[in-house]
């Protein structure tokens, strides 16, 4: 902990001069950005978090809407500098300077107060221990209601503030980006990653991993990269099982690697050599490394590390499961190697770990890999082919095969149209509540209040809104208070393309922060 903290503090000190570099890149090289951070007064950490939090929530919005080609005029860039500085100052010290969008400042101040209040409340709940969920006493419900009300107002405020930013979007882009970096760093200090012990395994892991197609997204900024990564991961997941079957490599023709259980279950595999922050993907690490200095910004440093193709014939790598007696273990008689790290991870979780993810819809199916749960949830409840024996089938032909096989079984036909309500919105919301329960009690609260918290969401299609709002709240929740439970918080499917609120969902906040406060926002540093 100490080591980690100091490391981060150092980085902060160092990066104060260089943190402007990334936004510069993003907005076509505004060289004057270096000033920005040096002007910034160093305030109390906690304050900063909260303030930056507010900023951060805004930041993705301009970014998403902003054309990448920004005018590189000097006057423009100076404007860009001014804006964040003033805003930060105003926010941090809560003294209202005469900056023209006064209303917005008021809004932000209000937000700040609210978040303070909420934070205190949540702290209180944290102090009482994690068993809040189980107890249905009045105090808890009152607290939950309080939090709900507060959050609702915060969200509404946030949205309106973000909306008011729209006209001045051009100036905000550069301002927003550094603040992201700041937040990342602060949180990094406050909540250092718990798993830096595993840093040692990093080299091996990174060499075995295949992370592709990230390069072209690097320019878009951290948010987009993470989104992309997410989908890439899913694809890999799908392919993995099929791909490894039927492979007939002669023994000895490949190198067998075996990771330890801890390594497999470690949430991160790529670690920053400077600050020690962990990442799931090397692309994210490279993005992060840019914040550590100019030497990491060269195209060569940002490029995907290619295997030294041609120079030496690479021995094919295959993986062994550390679980003794497993068929995937190298000591097994009929050893069948696993192809990639991802295969190892999924195999290990599926086969040798508890199935801790329970489908919130059917409450029967259990999974140890979140992606499996999500795949299942896509189809869960759609088992509309019902036999008289009570067995349900997701496919009609399977039901008919079942009926053909057994005497006396017959398809069950609903006498009414009652089955139509099955996939209704209320059910979905319940599902989300339960999903969130896995994370923490607070989270449960949030998603249960989705419809009241944001009236406009009712217009959206139910699935999208439910999923996205859940993620929205979870991320918010996540950064304000740190729960261990968040490690395993199931990530909602990322299909918010039509969602008008997608700008409020910073992908980087949603998906990467698996380890408490160790926010992936550090990528930008």
């Amino acid at each position, binding site marked *: 902990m100490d080591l980690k903290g100091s490391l981060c503090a150092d980085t902060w000190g160092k990066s104060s001069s260089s943190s402007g570099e990334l936004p510069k890149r993003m907005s076509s090289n505004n060289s004057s950005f270096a000033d920005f951070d040096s002007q910034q007064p160093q305030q109390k950490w906690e304050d900063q978090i909260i303030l930056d939090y507010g900023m951060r929530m805004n930041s993705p919005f301009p970014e998403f809407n902003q054309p990448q080609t920004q005018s590189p005029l000097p006057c423009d860039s100076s404007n860009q500098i001014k804006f964040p500085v003033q805003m930060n100052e105003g926010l941090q010290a809560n003294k209202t300077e005469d900056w023209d969008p006064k209303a917005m400042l008021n809004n932000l101040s209000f937000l700040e107060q609210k978040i303070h209040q909420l934070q205190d409340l949540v702290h209180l709940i944290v102090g009482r221990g994690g068993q809040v969920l189980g107890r249905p006493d009045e105090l808890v419900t009152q607290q939950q209601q309080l939090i709900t009300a507060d959050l609702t107002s915060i969200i509404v405020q946030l949205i309106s503030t973000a909306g008011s930013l729209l006209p001045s979007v051009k100036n905000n882009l550069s301002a927003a980006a550094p603040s992201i970096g700041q937040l990342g760093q602060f949180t990094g200090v406050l909540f250092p990653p718990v798993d830096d012990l595993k840093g040692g395994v990093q080299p091996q892991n990174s060499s075995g991993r295949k992370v592709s197609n990230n390069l072209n997204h690097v320019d878009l900024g951290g948010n987009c990269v993470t989104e992309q990564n997410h989908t890439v991961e899913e694809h890999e997941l799908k392919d993995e099982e099929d791909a490894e079957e039927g492979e007939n490599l002669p023994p000895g023709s490949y190198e067998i690697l075996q990771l330890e259980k801890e390594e497999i279950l470690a949430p991160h595999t790529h670690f920053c050599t400077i600050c020690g922050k962990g990442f799931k993907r090397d692309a994210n690490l490279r993005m992060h490394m840019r914040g550590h200095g100019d030497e990491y910004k060269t195209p060569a440093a940002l490029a995907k590390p290619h295997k030294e193709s041609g120079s030496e014939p690479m021995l094919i790598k295959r993986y062994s499961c550390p679980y003794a007696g497993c068929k995937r273990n190298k000591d097994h008689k009929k050893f069948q190697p696993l192809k990639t790290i991802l295969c190892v991870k999924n195999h290990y979780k599926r086969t040798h770990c508890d199935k801790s993810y329970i489908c919130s819809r059917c409450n029967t199916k259990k999974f140890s890999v979140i992606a499996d749960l999500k795949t299942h949830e896509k189809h869960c409840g759609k088992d509309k082919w019902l036999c008289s024996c009570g067995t349900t089938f997701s496919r*009609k*032909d399977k039901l*008919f095969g079942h*009926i*053909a096989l057994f005497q*006396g*079984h*017959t*398809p069950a*036909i609903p*006498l009414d149209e009652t089955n139509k309500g099955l996939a209704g919105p209320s059910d979905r919301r319940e599902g989300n509540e339960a999903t969130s329960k896995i994370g923490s009690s607070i989270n449960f609260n949030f998603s249960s209040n989705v419809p009241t918290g944001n009236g406009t969401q009712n217009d959206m299609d139910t699935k999208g809104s439910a999923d996205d709002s859940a993620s929205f709240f979870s991320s918010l929740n996540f950064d304000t208070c740190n729960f261990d439970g968040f490690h395993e918080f199931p990530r909602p499917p990322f299909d918010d393309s039509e969602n008008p609120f997608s700008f409020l969902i910073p992908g980087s906040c949603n998906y990467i922060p698996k380890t408490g406060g160790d926010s992936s926002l550090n990528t930008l540093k």
Partner: protein
Amino acid sequence: MKKPTKMAQPQTYTNNPFDILTEEIIFTILDHLNSHPFAKKSFSLTCKTFYLIESRHRRTLKPFCTQLLERTSFRYPFIAQLDLSLCAQVDDNALNIVSSSSTWKSSLWGVNLSKSRLFSEVGLSSLCVNCVNLVEIDLSNMSEMGDVAAVAIAEAKNLESLWLARCKLITDMGIARIAIGCRKLRLLCLKWCLRIGDLGVGLVALKCKEIRTLDLSYLPITEQCLRSVMQLQYLEDLILEGCYGIDDDGLATLEQSCKPLKVLNMSNCQNISHVGFSCLTNGAVSLQQLTLAYSFAFTADLSKCLQNFPALQSVKFDGCSVTCSGITAIGNWCASLTELSLRACSGLTDEQLSFVVQSHKELKKLDITCCCKITYVSIDSITNSCTSLTSLRMECCSSVSKEAFVLIGQHCRYLEELDVTDNEVDDEGLKSISRCSKLLNLKLGICSNITDNGLTHVGKGCSMLKELDLYRSTGITDVGIAAISHGCSSLEEVNIAYNDRITDASLTSLSKCSSLKVLEIRGCTHVSSVGLLSIAMGCRQLTVLDIKKCFNINDNAMLPLALYSQNLKQINLSYCSVTDTGLVTLANINRLQNMTILHLMGLTPNGLTAALLSCRGLKKVKLHASFKPLLPRSFLGYMEAHGCVFQWRDKAF
């Protein structure tokens, strides 16, 4: 129980000679009392005993309305076959009455609900549950009920025959339910059940092993389900009309064909050629009837496929393009055909047809409608080879000369059905045709060459004639009709539409045909109410009457119609001079089901409403669209709730 006491009483008090007869003997007499429709009614009205015996004897019932069903169930306790297709209002209530009748519960084995739309699954369920001996049920046109009805049907465990034609809402799930509930099914008609696919049919074939007849017409099925269908051990009759999902490639994958198959209909299967057909029929040695209308070309290859069916009797190639080699190969078939249809095979030539009929001399039925190329030569060889022909349809064979028809009369003495519509036949031909004394059905429509002379010959020779069509045969006058009605007293159906020279005299002479059921005098402008009066008085069995465009027919004709033609079911009054009064009078016929009332000048909305309201059994009314806004909506709703369908026509006068 009741019978002995009733029988005993008359024995003691009277000397009724019929009392000696046992009930069984009278039952046997009643069995043969079918020739006249009112015979049994008269019998039952003779005396109480006969009334009772007739009630106990009756097995079939075809009521006109459901209102009296409860009382009918007391009068006729042993009804086995109940046909409700004539009733307009068959609702749950009616079905409950049927299924709650103490005797019908066990006696009913067949119910026809094919034209009823008002009942729900509740009534159907009570029928299927209570009538334990039900083996036959016709639920065609059940367009508003889906799988819930199927659930109800599945309760009838003993069901053997089930018609579900045009039950478009029943899905695979429903039919699976039926397949599992009704394991004894022998006949299943799923025509036009568009939501039933491979899975449903496959399951039926798997679960109902007894199936003999299977109609899968127009289903979206592929060879997937045929695989199970082909394994049915007793399947004799398979109808695959219009199954576009079945193709050659799919059929090629079938491992086995159905051995016991006797009847196969693959009309309108556009994606099949003789290759797929041979895959499907390979080994079906007992095939007797084959219908391949409008499907694939009749080639030599196909002909070769058909060679190996020794039992083949009937083949229909309607609308197929025929090739010379294909047709000539028919001669090599080992089977001797009795029925051949080459309807609308436009390429058929004299040589081909002559060759075919010469090699199949046993032909009884031949259909060469619309074969425009054939001439006198063909008719010559047909009449020479196939002397036992009973049915010859040659409508619109326009190249056949008038001399050819003389040959028909000379050689084909056993003809019962002759269709020479739109041909060159003249009086000489008719004179010859009149030698066919067994003729029942003669169609002479659009034969402008025939006159009264020819008809007089027909009237003299064909005394058994039941159906005569003289549509637009404009050479006919009252004299000819008089000769016909004098000679053919058993006429049941007459069409003399659009004959300008027909007057009331014709109708007066036709009124002697007391069994006349269908009369069409559309467009006979000289016919007046007087003529119709005599028809109404003479032909008490009249059920269908078309007097469209008989402008001289007015309200005066409606009163006798209402009075005497109590059997009238269908009437077309369009363009007549009938007014409100006439229509209201007509509405007294309580069997009236189908009315077409277009362009009646003297008709007001009020009169129409009054008339329609008093017709309780109406099922279909065709009205001019201009009436739609004029009639109260509540009235239309009421009529529709009572089983009446409105059809609105927007045709100019």
